[in-house]
């Protein structure tokens, strides 16, 4: 980001810390911006593995970053639902984008992006297709298992009974949506609601949350970057405050 105001380069690499992922993400984001590491005033890290990125001058917890990033993408947001690959969380956001409070998913993978990845693999489709397929659903079926492995068996058995993939896609989206709605209810929901994380791009889940809560769910094409945006803004605050 430049001057805490403009995204000039971004990259998403879906592999974790301890692999070449972080280095590839850094390289791709810098290339996208037409810069090198030497051009950077400050580099910040957030998310799992944040403490191992050697280039990072600042490290922030991802919850604060998502609140701040969401506020930048959608000024005035009061509640954020972030569903990423590792976990899901509902955040209350204070005016200005500070984190007011939060609740997170329990230890189970169900209700996270990982659940969708596993289900897409069983249906033998990619994530983008899974995110649209619910629109063709004609019949309501239910995936009720709270365990990803159990849900996997449930989907396989539904497929063998001849249930259509589009009906299963809708059921899978609803399963993730209901767990997210549970978090929002525990937290206490104040509108407007904004979604961040990779699952914000999954139209099926967003539609299912809107149907369940009967309120609009706002999101943004860049919502998957909310954590990174928040980290950049918080780092920008630090260096400008120090400069004062």
């Amino acid at each position, binding site marked *: 980001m430049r001057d805490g105001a403009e995204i000039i380069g971004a990259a998403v690499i879906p592999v974790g810390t301890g692999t070449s992922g972080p280095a590839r993400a850094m390289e791709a984001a810098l290339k996208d911006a037409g810069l090198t590491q030497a051009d950077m005033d400050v580099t910040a890290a957030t998310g*799992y593995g944040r403490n191992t990125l050697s280039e990072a001058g600042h490290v*922030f*917890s*991802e*919850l*604060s970053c998502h609140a701040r990033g969401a506020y930048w993408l959608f000024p005035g947001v009061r509640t954020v639902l972030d569903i990423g690959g590792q*976990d899901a969380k509902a955040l209350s956001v204070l005016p200005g984008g*500070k*984190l*007011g*409070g*939060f*609740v*997170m998913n*329990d*230890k189970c993978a169900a209700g996270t992006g990982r659940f969708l990845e596993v289900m897409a693999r069983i249906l033998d489709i990619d994530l983008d297709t899974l995110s649209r397929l619910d629109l063709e659903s004609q019949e309501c079926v239910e995936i009720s298992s709270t365990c990803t492995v159990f849900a996997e068996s449930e989907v396989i058995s539904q497929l063998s009974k001849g249930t259509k993939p589009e009906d299963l896609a809708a059921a899978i989206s609803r399963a993730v949506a209901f767990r997210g709605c549970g978090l929002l209810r*525990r937290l206490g929901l104040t509108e407007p609601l904004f979604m961040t994380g990779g699952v914000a791009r999954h139209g099926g889940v967003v539609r299912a949350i809107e149907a369940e809560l009967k309120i609009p769910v706002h999101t943004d094409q860049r919502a998957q970057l909310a954590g990174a945006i928040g980290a950049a803004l918080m780092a920008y605050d630090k260096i400008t405050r120090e400069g004062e």
Partner: protein
Amino acid sequence: MDDHIERKPAKIRLREIAEKATQDAWEAKLRGEKVGWCASNFPQEITTTLGIPVVFPENHAAGVAAKGGGQRMCEYAESMGYSSDLCSYSRISFAYAALKECPELNIPQPDFLLCCNNICNCMIKWYENLAVELDIPLLLIDIPHLDAFPCDEDRIRYIRAQFDDCIRKLEELTGKKWDEERFKEVMAISQRSSRAWLKAVSYAQYTPSPYSGFDIFNNMAVAVVARGTVEAAEAFEQLAEEYEENVKNGVSTFKAEEKYRVLFEGIACWANLSYTFKTLKNLGINVTATVYGPAFSFLYDNLDELMAAYSYVPNCNVFERELELRVNDAIRHKVDGAIFHINRSCKHWSGTLYEMERQLREKAGIPTVVFDGDQADPRVFSEAQYLTRIEALVEIMEENKRKGARK
């Protein structure tokens, strides 16, 4: 006594008392006396008065887990056919009853079992299973869980009848005789211990707290195993004196700057104690409130109150009363936030935890965080997930302090 002889620090004395309690049980066993396995909140006035040696499977399991044996023992129990959904203390106990030894910590095998379900109703089935497996007698004191506070007359009469019945059965089982005078003495000593323990714990109200909150997890062992002994009473009194001295000198056993003060709810993650503690310490978080003060101090002035006191332990008491204890502690001990441990093992405790968290957050006006873990099974704890939650809590506490400073 010679004043020049320096006293051992209270924490050393307390550790020695806990170790001696186990050692005494070993020696009694060697002498041919009958030794019991006893629930942590069983009325110790009975066993102490009768002079019956007992050891505590809950403390044993916690000790095994803290020394790194939790996972191995749990897996052993699972290979025997026990579900991984069972309490990890019970799994360690089943494994130990089968294996008879454990490199981390050994206790004598039992000749009888003393169960009291005030801390946990599932414990009845745990002890019943041990009784069948080991073919030994089980004595149960059934403390009815409260639906209103305080404990009513009917419940007190019901507990009292079992108390008397248990004494009679233990006399028959061990050949030892009940002595009313000794009983009065034990009650008086227990009161002295409990008051000293509560006093020591209460010093966390000072800023900075004169002690690290995780010390409570270690020191509380004596409140369980030796509350009715003069040695314990004296050691707790010394602990309170040391804390008072620390307050006067502005020092603490918490070896970091106390930037934040929190309430820690739930049993410690014994198998992950080091990580959970160091993470907090590195962020300048000291635990200044836990439920362990009141949980292991039983205050009473007469026999009826003694019976009632055993229904005031966590899980047995009504939710509103438990909440009130935490809210009062949070306010009195000036906490900036609260950390709730959803303990996979303890369905009973975890059952009310989300609501406890919500109400504490509102009534005490503090941020709260919940993390998943277990009291003894390290397989259900994730370091990265714990760290993420604690760091977020810190960022909210930091912001609250900044806002408070601006006001």
